[in-house]
Every structure is written in structure tokens, then in C-alpha cells.
């Protein structure tokens, strides 16, 4: 299993993939946090879907991680793409047969790949936390937001809690990407379906009926990243419910995909 994980890390550290992904993380983390402070007085709002987060809220102990928390869902989409591509490309390149000849334990291959991608995702999250919080610290004075409470005991607790929530959310999104990669066996199909569902289909369904938000997988994982509560389109999802429903989706996906991966003939 660890051999598989180390082999996978060799692939994940290739410059195009590594710097491309980390570049996207830096860009979106800086963007989400910047908009929060630069558009603080905008009538169109400064958060997702026109929501306004005022100076009083940003000045609280949780204010420093507001941008980090907001970008969590986006980090999830990036993780979904990376996990899906890294899994499905083994089929399209035909390299899966090499992996299975060298490591016939199929569940070990899955677990090893998962560990490696989890480490990669963790690096994304740490980088995002630094950029988001750093950008917030730099932009807060210009937006007349107090940072006094951000790094006190409550502030540090908020950073830790948000980090854990974003990590759970990103790993959840990534796992869904891996499941799609295993089921569809094509990076393009897996990424397209995942992104289309999360960014378009779910939003359309929620627009048609707000209460569906409580049962859709992407909404649960987003809610975990933000710690639950209002999302700007409804009263939101309770954190515990998001953990439970999101966890069920991920568990079902992992069970089905693992079963098929172990049983399916490798014939291409």
C-alpha cells in the first residue's frame, strides 16, 4: 500500500500538474479573500451568490478564515478534477495493467492512490489557508475591518476548526472524483460529469426547490467546508446533517466503485 502511495506521489509531483494545481489554489484563494474585503461596501454583495458579509462579522474571531472557508468548495472542485484524472488516466493510458502486474492487491492500489492524493489535497489546503488568511490580513486595514480577534484563542480555534472542515469537504469532493474516475474510466467524462453536476445541475435543482439542498451531495460538502448555516440561497444545512448525508453519499460511492474495481476484468 505504501509502495503504491509513494509511486503515486512521484506522478503527482510532476511540474505541470503540481504547479498548475497549486497555481489555481493560490489564484482562487487570493481571489475569494480579496473580494470579501474589496467589495465590502458593494450593493451586489461581497460573498457567494450576492451575500453580504459586513465589517462586524469580519471583525469577529472567525473573520480571518471567512475567505478560506468560502474557497473550500472551490478547492473541492479542484480536488475532484485531480482525483478523477489521476484515477481514470490509468485506464486511458493502459497503465493500470502495469500497476496490477506489480501490485495485484487491487484494494491496496486504491488505498495507496487515495493516501497519496489525500496528501496532495492536504498540501493544497495548507497553501490555501496561508494565502486566504494572508490576503485577509493584508486587505483588512484598507477595508476598515478590525483584526484584533483573529489570532486570539477564539481566532486560533476558528482557524483550526475551519481547516478541519475544509479538509473533510475537500477529501469528500476528491473521493467523489476518484469514484467517478473508476466508474467512467475516462478523465474527460469523469471531470465533465462531476463539474457539470456540482456547478450547474445542483444549482438548478436548488433554484427549482430550495429544500432539495438538504439532500444533494455537492451542497452537503460545501456546507461542511463553511461549517453549516446559511448559504445565501436558503437557510442552509446543519453541519451535522451535512456530515451525515455527505458521508452516506461518499460511503456508497466508495463501496460500489471498490467492488467494481476489484471484480472487473482489466481488458484494455
Amino acid at each position: 500500500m505504501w509502495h503504491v502511495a509513494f509511486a503515486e506521489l512521484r506522478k503527482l509531483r510532476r511540474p505541470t500538474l503540481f504547479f498548475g494545481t497549486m497555481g489555481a489554489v493560490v489564484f482562487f484563494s487570493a481571489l475569494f479573500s480579496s473580494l470579501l474585503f474589496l467589495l465590502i461596501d458593494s450593493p451586489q454583495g461581497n460573498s457567494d451568490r450576492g451575500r453580504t458579509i459586513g465589517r462586524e462579522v469580519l471583525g469577529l474571531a472567525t473573520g480571518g478564515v471567512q475567505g478560506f472557508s468560502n474557497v473550500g468548495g472551490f478547492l473541492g472542485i479542484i480536488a475532484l478534477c485531480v482525483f478523477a484524472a489521476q484515477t481514470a488516466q490509468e485506464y486511458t493510458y493502459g497503465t493500470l495493467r502495469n500497476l496490477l502486474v506489480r501490485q495485484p492487491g487491487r484494494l491496496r492500489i486504491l488505498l495507496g492512490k487515495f493516501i497519496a492524493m489525500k496528501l496532495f489535497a492536504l498540501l493544497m489546503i495548507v497553501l490555501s489557508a496561508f494565502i486566504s488568511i494572508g490576503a485577509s490580513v493584508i486587505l483588512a486595514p484598507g477595508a476598515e475591518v478590525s483584526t484584533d480577534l483573529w489570532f486570539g484563542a477564539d481566532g486560533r480555534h476558528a482557524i483550526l476548526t475551519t481547516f478541519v472542515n475544509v479538509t473533510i469537504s475537500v477529501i469528500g469532493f476528491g473521493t467523489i472524483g476518484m469514484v467517478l474516475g473508476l466508474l467512467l474510466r475516462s478523465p474527460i467524462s469523469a471531470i465533465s460529469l462531476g463539474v457539470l453536476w456540482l456547478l450547474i445541475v445542483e444549482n438548478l435543482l436548488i433554484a427549482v426547490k430550495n429544500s432539495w439542498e438538504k439532500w444533494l451531495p455537492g451542497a452537503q460538502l460545501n456546507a461542511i467546508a463553511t461549517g453549516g448555516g446559511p448559504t445565501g440561497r436558503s437557510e442552509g444545512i446543519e453541519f451535522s446533517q451535512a456530515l451525515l448525508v455527505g458521508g452516506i453519499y461518499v460511503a456508497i460511492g466508495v463501496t460500489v466503485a471498490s467492488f467494481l474495481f476489484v471484480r472487473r476484468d482489466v481488458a484494455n
Partner: protein
Amino acid sequence: MSKTAISVSDLSKKYGDQVAVSHATFEVPLGTICGFVGPNGSGKTTTMRMLLGLITPTGGTGEILGESIKHPEKYLPRVGAMIEGPAFYPALSGKENLNVLATLGGFSKDRVQGLLEQVGLGDRGKSKFKTYSLGMKQRLGIAAALLPNPKLLMLDEPTNGLDPEGIQEVRALLRSLANDGTSVFVSSHLLSELELISDYLVMLRKGEVVFTGKMSDLMLSQQPVIIAKGAHENDLTLLLAIAQQAGHNATIRDGAVHVHGPADWAIEFNRAAFNAGITLSQLTPQLPNLEETFFEMTGDK
């Protein structure tokens, strides 16, 4: 300790109603080079996949290096394989691709550069796989198969895309591995290549084994072929008729009449042709080569 590198009995694979491999039974002794031949779609790759644990047989049993094919984890660390062409990550260099496989299998990465040099890629190891020619990709595939220092090497069409020099190098490499005790199971459509290097042969047709045994036994069991040409092109049909009237199986191929019959019938054939007013420009009795034997046995061409 088992004396066979590969031993399969009644091995079968069906996809729905379609039979890919039907009751295949054969053995490959340790330390030999065994050619695995058959027309396209005859089940060679499917058989290799079953032996490597990539697909599950629908029937039969098999052993690799004395271990059941139901437990590939017990023998695959001692097996090197390249199946259905070389498959690697295009954005990684040849060397990095081998490093990935070495890490995965728990093999020493110190072997990687040596293997690249052994297959003639020593100076191209740092180039990305996607920039390799087909021949270079094949060479990298062979290097990857050699990573575990295998006791059994299974190669599917290893000379695809190689130039004549490369083919000769692969032939020499396989022979030297076999001399060092490695068993080699190799499929190729270049039958003349297999004829030169194989000790054993397994021949498949439509999923069924039509021959398994020593190459020398197969060749000796074949009836000689008398190849005859007339001075004029239109003599061929008359020569064909003479041979067939004498009760021999004969065909026209490559501008000559090929007659299956005892070598000493050539004298009688010459006389009959002379009596029919034909001057022969060629009359050669010879043992059929593997390609001719293959077509004879598989009924193709």
C-alpha cells in the same frame, strides 16, 4: 520445486456467448523460450491476461512458477511482463516511468539506469515518454518487464515497431536471459523470429491450442514441401494439376507450386513435367518453415 514455468489445464474464458479461450492446456518448461503464436483474435492476449491475474478465467486451472493463478500475488513479484504493447505515463520521462514502477514493486531504483542502457535507451532516459518512437517505447516496455529480475518473462509482441537491428538485439537479449535460467513466454506475429529463438511452441487457433511441444518436434513432424517453377508463368497450373493427379496436396503460392509430399517424389515430378513439355526453372525439396507450418495447421491464408 515445479519444473514448469507455466502450466495450464482446460483454461477457458467466455464473454457472454463468445468464447475467447477454450480449454487451453499446455506447459512451458523452466528455462526455455516458448513462442506463443496464433492469428489475430485467437486468444493469445486473453490467455496472457489470465496468467497475469488481469482477468478471471471462466474455467480451468493454471500454475505459474508452481503457484496457482488464483493467487497472482504469490508469483507476480518473480514475473516480468509487457502485454498489449508498452503503456506508460506520457508526461513522465522514460527513467521516471521506470522509477514509478520500481517504487510500486519495491525494487531497487539502482537498476533503472542499467536497464535503460541494456535496452539501448541509456542516453534517452530523461526524455519524456510521449517523445519516444514506437521502437523506443517497445524498448522501455522490455526494460520495465525486466525490473523485477524475473524468473519468468512474458512478452506480447515485443518486436513491434523495432528496426531489424532492434529485432536482432531483442532476440539476443531473450536468448541470453534464457541461458541465465529465465523462462521466456513470447508472442509475436513475426514467425520467422520465433522460429529462430524458440525452444517450445504453443499454437492457438480460435481460442484452442492446436499444437504444444518442442519446436524441433513440430518441424520434424511436417511433410517436406517440393517447390517447383516452370520456365513460363502459365506452366504453374499444369504443374499443379500434375501434382494433384499424383495424389499430393499442392497449392500455388508466391509464383511457385508448393507440393506436400516426400522429398524423393521430386524426381518423379521432374519426369512428369518433362513429359508434359515443361522445362523446370526450379525444383527444391525443403522442410516447411514455421510460417508455412503455422498456416498449414491453423488453416489460414
